[in-house]
């Protein structure tokens, strides 16, 4: 019943049964049975038109506002990609619900996580100093970068000073935000992403499409094509274990010869100066433990006070992101190995400014679980690349304007404000309310398209003058054309442009009916 917790049977129902494959393809246990753990129950989803070209992301318009609407339209037009993407991520959302709601204390934990983060962020200077002092005492070298460019320069310098020719790295949204790969291209140092999704995107010259699964928008055919082009594999062999093994074998030599490895940081524990990284592949551990130099890029907002707090976040993170109690690898880096080096690069890049934004500073609590993307009905139908930014989906909408106000001024309107994102956020960021608040900022800063702002002025004028409003309605050729929500909102008739009929106009409005049938009523107290 609507309102009752989903039962397992209900989760078997899907919107697009035609894209569900019949053969179980995931990992099996020793007896050959499908794994029952959350990711293992992923429904195999097969695009029926195997060679539907992959829809590409938002067009590059330089610093002009991203046209997410146009990119989303192309994603929807790629019907097999869109359906598969939508079903896959909705499935992730359901698995999240099952794992999260299995804990009676789930909502209490969200509240605790939110409070821990708000405390850490409002005492950030002292926790950062504590973290740095502990790290230095452990033999770690600590660098500070004010912005993306400085982060890239610091890392580059560390590598060139040591004659590094090959750098392996694990997934780090911060390094993507800093444009690290683009910076390093042409510097004479080979940078190899070891995370499968990031590697696919790197080879295909695309940004990550999702914070947890960077290539989740691609079909296996798309991946086979990327690998065939870059790694010389068979473009027609689209078996997924085979594709993963192509990348494993191709990447391993780099892991063995790399002179440096780079990771991001999920959590930075102040009490001991420890960097915590969560992966499913173990590639952060490979990147940090195989070469003699480990560099960790750390956003200032990653700080948490103690290990007891880490337990709260870790119990939330994997359940909320992928529906399992833990990620396969949870690594704690505190000090370099004997004979090796460890460097931390602490990065600001606008975070300290965001701390001062009354309506938006709590977006710094984000632990990059991706659940907001999985639940967002707009994201699932648009694809992450339609947002034209490192961070996409609901969290992207509220972060990106702080990175580039003009370029991302359009993103807050790529939302229905339905509020599901806020409800799944493990640290209780009021995402949809911040999206609403950003719209106010964009309007006040005159960043709305002229058509929109002009229409709002007209609407605001007409709707505040009852006689004028009634006269306008009465004078219409059709009542339809003057409906406030769409009217003036629809000079180009977009209500009907994409497959939706106009409502029929009734013979009289309620207002006219009232005047006719209740003429004696003054209508005022």
């Amino acid at each position, binding site marked *: 019943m609507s309102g009752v917790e989903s039962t397992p049977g209900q989760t078997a129902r899907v919107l697009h049964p035609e894209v569900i494959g019949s053969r179980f*393809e*995931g*990992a099996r*246990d020793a007896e050959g049975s499908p794994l029952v*753990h959350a990711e*293992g129950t992923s429904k195999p*989803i097969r695009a029926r038109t195997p060679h539907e070209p992959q829809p590409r992301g938002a067009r590059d318009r330089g610093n002009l506002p991203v046209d997410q609407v146009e990119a989303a339209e192309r994603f929807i037009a790629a019907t097999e990609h869109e359906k598969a993407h939508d079903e896959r991520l909705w499935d992730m959302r359901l698995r999240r619900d099952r794992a999260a709601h299995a*804990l009676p204390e789930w909502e209490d934990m969200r509240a605790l996580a939110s*409070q821990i983060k*708000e*405390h850490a962020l*409002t*005492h*950030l*200077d002292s926790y950062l100093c504590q973290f*740095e002092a502990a790290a230095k005492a*452990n033999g770690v070298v600590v660098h*500070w*970068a*004010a912005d993306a460019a400085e982060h890239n320069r610091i890392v580059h310098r560390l590598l060139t000073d040591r004659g590094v020719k090959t750098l392996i790295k694990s997934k780090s949204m911060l390094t993507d935000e800093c444009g690290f790969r683009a910076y390093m291209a042409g510097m004479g140092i080979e940078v190899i992403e070891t*995370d499968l999704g990031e590697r*696919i995107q790197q080879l295909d010259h695309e940004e990550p499409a999702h914070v947890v699964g*960077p*290539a989740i928008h*691609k079909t*296996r055919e798309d991946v086979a094509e990327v690998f065939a082009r870059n790694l010389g594999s068979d473009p027609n062999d689209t078996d*997924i274990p085979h594709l*993963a093994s192509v990348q494993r074998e191709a*990447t*391993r030599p780099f892991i*063995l010869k790399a002179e440096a490895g780079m990771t991001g940081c999920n959590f930075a524990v102040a009490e*001991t100066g420890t960097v915590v990284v969560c992966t*499913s*592949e*173990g*590639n952060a*551990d*490979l990147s940090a*433990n*195989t070469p003699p130099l480990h560099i960790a890029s750390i956003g*200032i907002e990653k700080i948490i006070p103690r290990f*007891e707090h*880490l*337990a*709260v976040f870790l*119990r939330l993170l994997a359940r909320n992101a992928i529906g399992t*109690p*833990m990620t*396969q690898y*949870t690594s*704690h*880096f*505190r*000090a*370099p190995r004997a004979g090796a080096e460890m460097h931390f690069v*602490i990065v600001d890049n606008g975070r*300290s400014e965001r*701390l*001062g934004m009354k309506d938006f*500073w709590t977006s710094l609590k984000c632990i990059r679980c991706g659940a907001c993307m999985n639940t967002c009905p707009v994201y699932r139908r648009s694809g992450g690349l339609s947002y034209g930014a490192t961070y996409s989906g609901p969290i992207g909408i509220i972060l990106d304007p702080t990175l580039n106000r003009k370029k991302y001024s359009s993103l807050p309107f790529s939302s229905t404000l339905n509020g599901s994102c806020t409800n799944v956020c493990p640290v209780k960021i009021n995402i949809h309310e911040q999206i609403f608040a950003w719209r106010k900022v964009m309007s006040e800063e005159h960043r709305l398209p002229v058509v929109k702002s002009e229409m709002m002025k007209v609407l605001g004028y007409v709707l505040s003058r009852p006689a004028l409003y009634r006269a306008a309605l009465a004078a219409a050729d059709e009542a339809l054309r003057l409906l406030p929500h769409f009217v003036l909102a629809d000079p180009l008739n977009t209500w009907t442009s994409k497959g939706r009929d106009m409502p029929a106009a009734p013979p009289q409005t309620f207002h006219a009916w009232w005047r006719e049938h209740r003429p004696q009523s003054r209508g005022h107290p």
Partner: protein
Amino acid sequence: MSVREEVLARIRRNRPAGDHPLPLIPHFVIPGVEQGNLQSFSRALNAMGGRFFRSSEMSSPLAWIRENIPNARIICSAVPEVPSDRDWSAVRRPRDLADVDVAVVRAVLGVAESGSVLFTEAELKVNTLAYLAQHLVVLLDESAIVSGLQVAYTHPVFQTARYAVFHTGPSATADIEGVLIHGAQGVRSLTVIVGS
């Protein structure tokens, strides 16, 4: 002013208003673990694609390896109970372990809530052993299984180890079409042998 001072100054200048105290963290009882840590642990480990055995089910870990990973040529053992094909004194650099088929390591503890096992550099000898090897076999004392992550993090090893890591099943990824596969970059299989 150094970058460090600038960043810290900006943080102080932008500090949000209001009182934001650190909350007290209650201890949460893990559902299902009341039956016993061992049962929960094995269930959670299996759910993540790991394998679970009791040492009483086999004559020795080495015998189990020979029987179940028959193609293993090079076994690298970090535990005294299992002989090692790889001579540790010959390992100069982490990459020297690239040809290891099976690594055998003892865990500091296990976590019943998630089926995780914990290692530090002391158990691994060379950290990257647990990642370059094709298969990982883990020896774990039954008494070292704790109920959940909250308890695990009270272990003093987190204050002292240079490197500590939870493994929860073998290396995996679902990056392509959300289909889960094992043996992504790390080990293809993870087997825990629990003894008392």
